[in-house]
């Protein structure tokens, strides 16, 4: 491989070298000049300077200067123009050295937007591109820019959780693939899988390329849209020092609505009575009414009264000292487990940015510190980031620069969406259990009658010393050469390098029913690097009314990733300083590693932009990608795109419509590809040794395993790119004296040849990774709408209103040949038989599938009638629903009308995909004060509330906590309810079926932010203190959420073919923050 890359490297170096030598060739001059901006006197690079009425012209260099040989009639007028500035005519006269000052054009149409490998004037864009700038992005403090994108951009859906350092699910225009729908993040030209390490204050702009016309220049990677992030660069001028800081607290809010110990006991009795049993319980006795015990546990005895003699001298919680002996008093008032595992947690953020530069060198250096303690004990994110972006101008036509970020992250988290995480224990652990036993040890379900949950406080406190560090280096170096004939060459080499190290410790617990059997040390590290080399050549020029920009490029990328994980058990001592892998018992130490080269890509691409009179805009893009994951015949993919724009407002007939400042309609078509999920081995028959499942103790000598092999992959050579085809139509309008902007897009995206690794019939054997093949197709359509209005009410009053709306409608149009569905994985341990989500033809991705509850059986007569019918059905069944029914239990919809309930009656009972998501920003300012509100909402998404299985049905782990919902459960007297009878019966008609009882409306409307800020007047005292700008603010983040959902938080992520299920999710929390921004 090494050999093969050399010519590539060599060629690039030669190219640059040759360009370098050309620089000295430019010496002819007649007049010289410099173009600067009137606002800040900064030089304007790339401005067109043209002798009016001729084709004679040039562009300004990196220092803003130009030289032009004039035609020499004595009356020359220079026409100077640059995007973002009003064009200006300058008579030359007898001057030979001019300084031309351009006024900035305030219209947003002139904003420069970063697009694929290039920049474009916003007004010239014909694809679907959304942008957000740093000021709007950073209104809410967060560890991750992804979270800050929520509600800021039309077409972008962000689902996140409150866990510090969590990664969010970001979707651009919904879902187009069964495998991955993550956008392609490109930071300063370098792709990365994760932008959470970027400090929001280092971001200059974010562009989201949504349709094929704008994104297909990224070809095979652009499948799910592209998010381009540009970090801040230094500007010529004196040193500017900026310090941003915020400090705040986060409030955990309320946990689940859990019944008190007395209520829990009472309802335990009810459950048993409702099932015709005689109530009894190891804690509550056997009487006609339950009696709360005074002691939950004394030694081996459970459920004891106050007068029980106790002997604390027997107390022992150390396995080394013999059998465990605990004395645990019942907490009759009830333990609020959610309250116990949470805390009011501080959050702080500091950023110091130094920027400035001269003609020849510019710099921007940012230092950030972010420390968010989680509301749940032992979770936090501490992160340090250094960003240093510099750029040097050499000999006026050569620019060399680098963007570099070094970060260190310390981020212990919990496993979100798991029935055994701290959050889940809060709805599962019986509140009668105290946190501690009477001697200060941990209390738990060791006592009888309380089933098997674990003490979450004990678990969290014990994990406080878990460590997880991730240093990460990310960035690129680049060189740019400006050539004559408006040609610009650029070469950029970038990449990322990171290395995670963790050490976790799991204790040999004693307080629970099902304790970990050992002290376990897990330690490990992972390493990865990726690289990308991009070379581009750009030609850009105006010819009279014509404008042409041509971009050609070549790119290669690759990388490597590796991990090593080791676990060991039972070190001599569990002291933090002692427990290491080395000190664990040699008997049960296991080490595993894994890793692979990253898929290599080799790509060529080109892009042409043409416009005539600024009214008729045309672009065309073509990218050819080759990826190593496919068989030799299938490696190449070609992805074309084209778009058209018509600025109607530029036409004469629109000149008189004064309220329209600008109106452009546009349309685009294009294709993009995807190969992300396909592993390198897809094209080979593979075999692997796996110590767990291919070894065998052939000699019977206990512990002497012999290695074996199994198939681990089947070769498929026909697999090729998944492609989608997008059509997009929209308009951009600027109205009412540039105060109102509307951007509207309608799109339809069809994906074909969907890559998927469908399960194969068992006759070929089991594989952990089935081959990826091209299977089905999918359609997404929807609209994106963004509206902004700003202006002044009066002299001192200003306002800024923004709203955006995103809709997508996802429909699977084909799953695979002969297969019309596949199911999501069963969540966790699959407590409810069957799976919750199904991906099926003509339905949206990850839809909920199960039995539809049409009500509760109200009386025996209803049941008897249904049973009688079932016995006469074509396939007779003893009872209508297998296992029988009782009053108050679920009655399912006989979807196929065959008189019985069977598998065939399962149907689609919900859809986690929202109909629309939206963001609204309202800002008003009076003099120095600004008040800002931000809202975010999701409408029409369903949630499958798996937590109900644990808390709403008695036989699901009896003895655990119960949700207060059961107070509304069905009784012969209380029939107008949807909560089923609370009884000790676990059947198909109660908790043993995936049904619509769990499906809840997940729509919500959330106030994301209320912020009040005060900006001090410039000058005066500030100036004396050397301060240029000072702003103070106070804000409440997530002050309220309006939703019907009864779980902790309606915002739930998951993987793409299996999401929207609530199984113990770290909630989004309320924060109160104070901050300041100061510039020196």
């Amino acid at each position, binding site marked *: 491989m090494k050999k*093969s*890359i050399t010519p*590539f490297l060599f*060629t690039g170096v*030669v*190219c640059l070298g*040759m360009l370098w030598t050309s620089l000295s060739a430019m010496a002819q001059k007649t007049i010289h000049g410099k173009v600067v901006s009137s606002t800040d006197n900064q030089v304007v690079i790339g401005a067109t300077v043209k002798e009016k009425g001729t084709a004679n012209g040039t562009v300004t260099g990196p220092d803003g200067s130009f030289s032009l040989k004039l035609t020499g009639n004595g009356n020359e007028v220079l026409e100077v123009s640059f995007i973002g500035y009003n064009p200006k005519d300058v008579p030359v006269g007898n001057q030979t050295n001019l300084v031309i000052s351009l006024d900035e054009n305030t219209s947003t149409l002139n904003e420069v937007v970063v697009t694929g490998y290039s920049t474009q004037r916003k007004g010239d864009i014909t694809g679907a591109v959304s942008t957000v700038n740093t000021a709007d992005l950073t209104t809410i403090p967060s560890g991750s820019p992804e979270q800050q994108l929520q509600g800021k951009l039309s077409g972008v859906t962000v689902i996140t959780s409150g866990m510090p350092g969590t990664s969010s699910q970001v979707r651009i225009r919904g879902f187009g693939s069964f495998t991955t729908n993550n956008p392609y993040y490109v930071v300063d030209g370098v792709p990365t899988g994760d932008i959470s390490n970027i400090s929001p204050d280092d971001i200059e702009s974010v562009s989201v390329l949504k349709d094929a016309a704008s994104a297909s220049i990224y070809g095979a990677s652009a499948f799910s849209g592209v998010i381009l992030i540009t970090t801040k660069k230094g500007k010529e001028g004196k040193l500017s020092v900026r310090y941003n800081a915020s400090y705040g607290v986060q409030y955990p809010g309320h946990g689940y609505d859990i019944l008190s110990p007395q209520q829990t006991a009472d309802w335990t009795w009810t459950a048993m009575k409702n099932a015709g049993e005689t109530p009894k319980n190891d804690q509550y006795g056997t009487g006609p009414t339950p009696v709360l015990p005074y002691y939950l546990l004394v030694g081996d005895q459970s459920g004891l009264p106050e007068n029980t003699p106790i002997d604390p001298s027997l107390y022992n919680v150390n396995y080394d000292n013999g059998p465990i002996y605990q004395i645990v008093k019942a907490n009759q008032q009830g333990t609020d487990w959610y309250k116990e595992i949470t805390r009011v947690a501080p959050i702080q953020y500091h950023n110091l940015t130094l920027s400035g530069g001269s003609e020849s060198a510019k710099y921007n250096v940012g230092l950030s510190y972010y420390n968010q303690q989680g509301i749940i004990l032992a979770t936090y994110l501490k992160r340090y980031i250094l960003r240093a972006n510099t750029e040097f101008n050499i000999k006026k036509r050569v620019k060399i620069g680098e963007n570099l970020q070094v970060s260190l992250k310390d981020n212990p988290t919990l496993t979100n969406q798991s029935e055994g995480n701290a959050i889940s224990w809060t709805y599962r652990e019986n509140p009668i259990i105290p946190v501690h036993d009477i001697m200060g040890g941990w209390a738990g379900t060791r006592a009888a009658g309380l089933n098997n949950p674990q003490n979450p406080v004990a678990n969290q406190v014990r994990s406080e010393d878990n460590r997880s560090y991730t240093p990460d280096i990310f960035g690129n170096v680049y060189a740019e050469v400006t050539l004559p*004939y408006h*040609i610009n060459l650029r070469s950029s080499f970038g990449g990322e390098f990171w290395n995670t190290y963790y050490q976790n410790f799991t204790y040999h617990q004693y307080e629970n*029913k*099902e*304790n970990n*059997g050992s002290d376990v040390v897990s330690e490990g590290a992972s390493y990865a690097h990726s690289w990308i080399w991009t070379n581009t050549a750009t030609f850009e020029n105006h010819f009279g009314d014509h404008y042409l920009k041509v971009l*050609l490029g*070549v790119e290669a990328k690759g990388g490597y990733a590796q991990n090593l994980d080791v676990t060991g058990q039972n070190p001599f001592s569990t002291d933090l300083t002692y427990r290491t892998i080395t000190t664990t018992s040699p*008997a049960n130490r296991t080490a595993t590693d894994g*890793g692979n080269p990253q898929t290599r890509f*080799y790509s060529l691409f080109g892009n042409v932009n043409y416009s005539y009179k600024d009214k008729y805009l045309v672009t065309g893009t073509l990218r050819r990608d080759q*990826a*190593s*994951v496919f068989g030799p015949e299938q490696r190449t993919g070609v992805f074309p795109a084209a778009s058209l724009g018509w600025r109607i407002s530029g036409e004469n007939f629109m000149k008189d419509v004064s309220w329209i400042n600008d109106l452009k309609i546009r349309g685009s078509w294009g294709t993009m590809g995807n190969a992300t999920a396909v592993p390198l081995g897809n094209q*080979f028959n*593979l*075999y*692997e040794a796996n*110590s767990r*499942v291919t070894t*065998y*103790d*052939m000699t*019977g000598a*206990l512990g002497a*395993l012999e290695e*074996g*092999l199994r*198939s681990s*992959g*089947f*070769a*498929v050579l026909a697999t090729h790119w998944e492609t989608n085809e997008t059509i997009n139509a929209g308009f951009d309008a600027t109205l009412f004296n540039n105060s109102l902007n509307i951007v509207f897009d309608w799109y339809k995206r069809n994906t074909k040849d969907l890559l998927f690794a469908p*399960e194969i*019939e*068992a*006759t*070929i*054997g*089991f594989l*952990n990774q089935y*081959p990826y093949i091209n299977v089905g197709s999918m359609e997404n359509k929807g609209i994106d709408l963004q509206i902004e209005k700003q202006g002044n009410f009066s002299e001192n009053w200003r306002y800024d209103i923004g709203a955006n709306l995103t809709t997508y409608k996802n429909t699977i149009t084909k799953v695979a040949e002969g*297969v019309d*569905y596949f199911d999501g994985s*069963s969540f966790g341990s699959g407590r409810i038989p*069957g799976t919750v989500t199904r991906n099926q033809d003509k339905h949206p991705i990850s839809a909920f599938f199960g039995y539809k509850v049409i009500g509760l059986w109200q009386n025996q007569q209803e049941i008897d009638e249904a049973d009688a019918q079932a016995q006469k059905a074509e*396939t007779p069944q003893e009872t209508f629903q297998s296992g*029988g029914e009782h009053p108050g239990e679920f009655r399912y919809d006989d979807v196929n009308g065959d008189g019985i309930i069977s*598998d065939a009656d399962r149907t689609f009972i919900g859809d986690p995909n929202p109909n629309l998501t939206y963001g609204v920003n309202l800002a008003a300012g009076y003099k120095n004060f600004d008040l800002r509100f931000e809202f975010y909402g999701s409408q029409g998404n369903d949630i499958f509330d798996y937590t109900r299985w644990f808390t709403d049905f008695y036989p*699901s782990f*009896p003895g655990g906590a119960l949700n207060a919902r059961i107070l509304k459960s069905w009784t012969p007297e209380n029939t107008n309810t949807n909560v089923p009878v609370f009884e000790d019966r*676990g059947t198909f008609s109660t*908790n043993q079926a995936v049904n619509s009882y769990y499906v809840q409306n997940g729509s919500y409307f959330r106030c994301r932010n209320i912020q009040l800020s005060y900006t001090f007047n410039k000058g005066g005292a500030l100036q004396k203190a050397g301060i240029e700008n000072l702003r103070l603010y106070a804000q409440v983040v997530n002050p309220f959420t309006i939703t019907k959902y009864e779980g902790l938080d309606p915002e739930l992520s998951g993987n793409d073919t299996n999401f929207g299920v609530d199984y113990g999710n770290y909630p989004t929390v309320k924060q109160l923050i104070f901050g300041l921004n100061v510039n020196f």
Partner: protein
Amino acid sequence: MKKTNIRLIYFLMLGLGLVTFSCKKTFLNQFPNGVLGDEQVATAKGIKELLIGAYADLDGQFDPNNLYWQASPDNWVYGSICGGDAHKGSDPSDQADALPVARFEALPTNSYLVVKWRAVYDGIARANNVLRTLKRVTDMTDDQKTQAEAEARFLRGHYAFEAKKMWNMVPWVSDSVTYVDNNYKIPNDKDIWPEIEADFQFAYQNLPPTQDEVGRVNKWAAGCYLAKAYLFEKKYPEALTLLNAIMPEAGGAGETANGLKYQLQDRYSWNFDLAHNNSSESVFAVQATTNDNTAGYNGNIGDMLNYPYGNGAVTGCCGFFQPSIELANSFRTDASGLPLLDGSYDDPGKAVKNDQGLASSDSFTPDAGNLDPRLDHTVGRRGIPYLDWGVHPGASWIRNQASAGPYSPIKNVFHKSQVGSGGDNASATWAPTNAINYTLIRYADVLLWAAECEVQAGSLEKARSYVNEVRQRAANTADFVKNGNQNAANYKIGLYNTPWIDKATALKAVQMERKLELGMEGHRFFDLVRWGIADEVLNAYFKYEGQFTGDIKGATFKANTNDYFPIPQRQIDLSSGTLKQNPGYN
């Protein structure tokens, strides 16, 4: 100057062009790490390891990311629970999918059946991998190849047998089936007994009588398995001929892979003690091992849930696989120490006294009547020492008495003294495992097959001698469970000293002996089905047992349907309809 620039642009174009064509071929050729390709495994070493891989599926663990008790080789769910030996145990909602299986209400989507199906077909695929790759190997002698083929075919026969007895109409997957050849959608329209027989026959004819490694199948194990197939096919004469060639009692040459002449061990309980793995009674066993740095995957992990529950018990988890009251009752013996063949052991007054409904703090005295000593090696019950873990305290070791009765499993449980040396109580996982081999075919099983065949052949006396041989061993007083120096219960076991009067009585005695000798070992349901008495026995069981426990109350066994389980719906779907569902399931 202009010329220079133009030249420069040409160079530039050329440069870009070069980049385009320079690094194409090799740059994009990548092979993943940590895996082998086709050529590397087509060697003697590759065959050796592929074969070990095929053995490795015997424990039902085929997926390193999941622990599959659903595919445990001892069939504790399908063989024992479905046969009425045991309850699912634990809370009804824990492993809820096992309950409909136990109640014969399992839908074709039931996850237990899905896993079992996958496990056996993965085993077949691994065996086929050996057979297929053998054809490409050049560095092995013909003898070596035949030996490998024989072992692989034996294993394939075993896995196919599992499928056959579970689902009856199942697809036969030969070694010509591959994903690449797209010929894996195979109908289940043929009886596969001939293929299973052929595999065992080939193994029997080509395997050596002993092997260097005890875990490998030998000639005699293959012969026994072939006999078992004959038995399932009701080909009793063929089975008997074969068994007579194997059993030392009949002058046969049968011995274990490590060269021990087939015979019962001195003590019944040694069959369930890891210190006595691979004994003279171990015809073919799934080798189990622990403390081998594989997180329990190579222990008898399929039974990981099947331990008493609660503090002071073996482990905290998980209270499954609780022996039924009916099974315990079956161990009642009469004054001469013989079982009550008329089934009256369930009658009030004769049923074994148990502590159902009592808390551990309530007082309880265990049954004082005559009992077969094998009871306390099969059923963990209150008041009786539970291996060396102490006296079983009753309810406090039981997760949910009301649901699944008062008893604990015991045969799959290790001794306290073995913790760390085969009994892995300190496993990192939440449930333990241990190194007790599951003996797929144990010699007592073979003796009772022979007894059954002799009954069918009308040689009742020979049958009686085989049954008595089994009972004689059980009567070894040294093996009685003791409380101190005293027998823990009133053990009374005797031999059938009078000839059986007729074939029916003899058959009944043999069948009863299988129930007692092989209780909780995963054979019962399949025995009931092949005897054609599942309907009668199981419906009576549900009626009787349902009086005491909630889990199987009201369950019924449907004759002609429930003899076999429904074929997993997902497999039918994936087969594009090539697979047809078993009759009675929709």
